[in-house]
C-alpha cells in the first residue's frame, strides 16, 4: 500500500489548521470584557513585604529632595543669589504657615453624622479608582453590546453600525453623545434597515416561543425586514470568521419563514418586544439567554433588569456590568433603584476594601432616588451591615430597628447589637436586648449563641 510522504501529510494537517477559523462568541466576549474590567479596576496586588521598602524609598527620596531644596534656599538667602524658588517667607509666622499643609474643605455630611473624607485620603483614592473601573466596565459593556448587535467589523469604517454607536453612547453617557448633526444626517429609512431588529434576535434564539410573543408597534415591519437578506449577506469576508451575528443570512435559515409569519399572526400583541421566553432552561438556553441579555441592551429597562438579575448568581461580574449599564442608561427608572441595591450587595459580597466604598456610593444614590421607597429597608440594613466601627454599627442598627420595627432583618439586627455590646463588655446595656431576643425570637438562628451571652452577662 503506497502512502504519501510524512512531509505531505504534515502539510495537509497544517492546511487544515490554516483553514480553521476560531470565532469569539458573544458570551465569551462579554465574559472576558467583564473580567477585564474587574482586573483592570482592581488595585495592584503587591506583596506586603515589598510595600515597606517602597514606602521607605519614597520617604528617603522626598527627604533628600527637601534637604536639597532647604539647602538651596538657605544658600540663596545668605548669598543674595537670585531666588528661583520664590520669595522666602518674611517672618516666623509665615514660615509656619508655609509649612502647614493646606486645609482641605470638609466633605459632605454622611448619614451617621460624620463627614466623608475628601481630597487626598486613601478612601478618596480608592473611590476614584473605582469610578474609573466603573467607567471601563460600562465602556466595555457598551462595546460588547454593540458587537453583539452588529458584529465587529460588519460595518466599514466610518459607517454607522446597528443603530449607531453614538445613539447607544448617548443612551449610557451624555458626554459620549455623537457630535451634533451626525445622527440626523442618517436618513430614517437607512437607519431602519441598519437597525438591529430585536424581535428577530429573540425569535432566533427561541424560535419555538416566537409566535407566542408580543411585539411592539414598529416590530412587524422590522420582522419583515429581518426576513430579507441583510446588506452583509453573501460577503465572504463577513460571513467567515465573524462571531455570531443575528441578522446575516436570515433568508436561508429554516426559521426565517416562521419568523416572517409572526407579522401575519393576529395574536401578536403590540405593547413591547417579545416578553415570553422559553420556560425550559437547558444548558443551551442558559447560554442563549445570556446572549439575549447582552443583545437586549435596547430592550425595556424591566427586561434588562430581569436579564441582569438572572445572572446575579451565575456570573456576578457580567451581572454587575449589566446593572451598571442599566443604571447609567435609565437612572430614574424604578429598576435602577433595585439595580443599585443589587450592585451594593454584590460589592459587599466580593468583600474587598474598596468594594465597601462602591456599596456606600450605591446606597447614597438610593437615598436620593425617586423610587427609593421600595428598597429603603434592605438598603438601610445594608448600610448598617457594612459599618465597621462597632459604636457606629450599634447606633445604625438601633436606628434601623426604630425605623423598621417589623423588618425581617430585625432579628439579625437585634442579635448584632447585643453581640456588639457583649463584645464591648457592656453587659448592662446588652441584658435587655438579650432578654428581648429570647422573648421575641425564641427559635431564632442565634438562640443558642444568645443564651451563651446571657450566661456570660448574668450577675
Amino acid at each position, binding site marked *: 500500500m503506497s502512502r504519501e510522504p510524512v512531509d505531505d501529510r504534515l502539510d495537509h494537517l497544517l492546511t487544515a*489548521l490554516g483553514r480553521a477559523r476560531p470565532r469569539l462568541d458573544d458570551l*465569551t466576549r462579554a465574559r472576558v470584557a467583564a473580567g477585564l474590567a474587574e482586573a483592570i479596576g482592581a488595585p495592584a496586588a503587591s506583596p506586603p513585604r515589598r510595600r515597606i521598602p517602597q514606602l521607605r524609598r519614597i520617604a528617603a527620596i522626598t527627604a533628600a529632595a527637601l534637604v536639597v531644596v532647604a539647602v538651596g534656599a538657605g544658600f540663596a538667602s545668605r548669598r543674595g543669589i537670585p531666588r528661583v524658588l520664590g520669595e522666602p517667607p518674611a517672618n516666623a509666622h509665615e514660615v509656619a504657615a508655609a509649612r502647614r499643609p493646606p486645609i482641605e474643605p470638609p466633605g459632605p455630611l454622611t448619614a451617621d453624622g460624620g463627614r466623608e473624607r475628601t481630597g487626598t485620603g486613601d478612601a478618596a483614592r480608592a473611590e476614584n479608582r473605582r469610578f474609573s473601573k466603573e467607567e471601563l466596565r460600562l465602556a466595555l459593556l457598551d462595546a460588547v453590546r454593540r458587537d453583539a448587535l452588529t458584529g*465587529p467589523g460588519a460595518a466599514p469604517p466610518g459607517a454607522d453600525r446597528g443603530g449607531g454607536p453614538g445613539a447607544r453612547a448617548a443612551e449610557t453617557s451624555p458626554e459620549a453623545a455623537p457630535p451634533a448633526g451626525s445622527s440626523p444626517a442618517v436618513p430614517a429609512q437607512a437607519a431602519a434597515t441598519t437597525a438591529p431588529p430585536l424581535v428577530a434576535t429573540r425569535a432566533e434564539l427561541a424560535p419555538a416561543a416566537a409566535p407566542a410573543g408580543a411585539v411592539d408597534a414598529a416590530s412587524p415591519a422590522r420582522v419583515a425586514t429581518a426576513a430579507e437578506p441583510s446588506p452583509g449577506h453573501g460577503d465572504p469576508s463577513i460571513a467567515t470568521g465573524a462571531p455570531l451575528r443575528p441578522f446575516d443570512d436570515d433568508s436561508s435559515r429554516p426559521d426565517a419563514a416562521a419568523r416572517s409569519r409572526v407579522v401575519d399572526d393576529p395574536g401578536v400583541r403590540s405593547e413591547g418586544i417579545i416578553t415570553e421566553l422559553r420556560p425550559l432552561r437547558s444548558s443551551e438556553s442558559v447560554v442563549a439567554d445570556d446572549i439575549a441579555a447582552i443583545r437586549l441592551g435596547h430592550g425595556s429597562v424591566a427586561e434588562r433588569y430581569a436579564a441582569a438579575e438572572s445572572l446575579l448568581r451565575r456570573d456576578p461580574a457580567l451581572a454587575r456590568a449589566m446593572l451598571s449599564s442599566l443604571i447609567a442608561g435609565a437612572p430614574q427608572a424604578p429598576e435602577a433603584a433595585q439595580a443599585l441595591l443589587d450592585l451594593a450587595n454584590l460589592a459587599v459580597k466580593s468583600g474587598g476594601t474598596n468594594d465597601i466604598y462602591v456599596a456606600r456610593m450605591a446606597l447614597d444614590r438610593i437615598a436620593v432616588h425617586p423610587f427609593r421607597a421600595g428598597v429603603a429597608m434592605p438598603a438601610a440594613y445594608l448600610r448598617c451591615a457594612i459599618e465597621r466601627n462597632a459604636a457606629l454599627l450599634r447606633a445604625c442598627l438601633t436606628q434601623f430597628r426604630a425605623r423598621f420595627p417589623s423588618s425581617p432583618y430585625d432579628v439579625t439586627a437585634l442579635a448584632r447589637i447585643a453581640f456588639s455590646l457583649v463584645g464591648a463588655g457592656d453587659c448592662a446595656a446588652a441584658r435587655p436586648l438579650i432578654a428581648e431576643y429570647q422573648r421575641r425570637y425564641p427559635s431564632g438562628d442565634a438562640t443558642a449563641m444568645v443564651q451563651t451571652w446571657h450566661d456570660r452577662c448574668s450577675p
Partner: protein
Amino acid sequence: VKPAAQRTPATPDAELASSAAAGDATAFAEIYSRYADRVFARLTHLIGPTADREDVFQQVFLELHRALPRFRGDASLSTFLYRITINVAYDHLRRRGRRAGDHDPTALDALITGDPTPEDRARRREELGRIFSLLGQIKPKKRLAFVLVAVEGLSLGEAAELLGAQTDAVKQRVLHARRELVALMSRDERRIERRVP
C-alpha cells in the same frame, strides 16, 4: 486626546492608543472591540483550543492595558498587540510545558467552518486534534515561530519582528520545528502500525 464623542469607527489606532493610555476607558473598549476577534483567532492558532484559552485571551488585553503607556507608535497598534499576544502565548506554553494534550471535541468542532458532512466534519476534527497534539510536543519558541510562518503565512521577517528575534534564528526554529513534527508523526505512525496486526 480626542473626546469620546468625536471618535468614529474610523479613528486611527494610534489615536485610540494614546487616548486609552491617558485613561480613556471608551478608547480601550474600542480597541478591545476592534481587535478581540483577531487576537482570539491568532491565540487559538498559537496555543490551541485549550480550556484556559479564555484566561490567556483576557491576559493579552490586560497586558495591553499595562503596556499602552509605553506604546510610542513606532509600530502599528496591531503589531504591538500581536507582539503582546505572542509573549503571553509564549509564557502560557512555557508554564504549561510540552504535552500532547487532549482537546475538547466541541472546541475543535467550533474551529470548523462551512457546512461539511458529518463524516467530513469528523475527519477535520481529527486532523485538527492531531496537529494541535503534535504542536504541543515541541518547544514553545519553535512552535510559535512555526505557526506564524507555516500556518499564518507570515514571512520570516514579519515573524521575526513579532517574536523579537533575528530572521535567521526564526528560520532555524521553523526548520527544526518542521523536522521535529515530521519525526513525531513518523514515530506515532510506527506505534500505530505495531499495534495493528
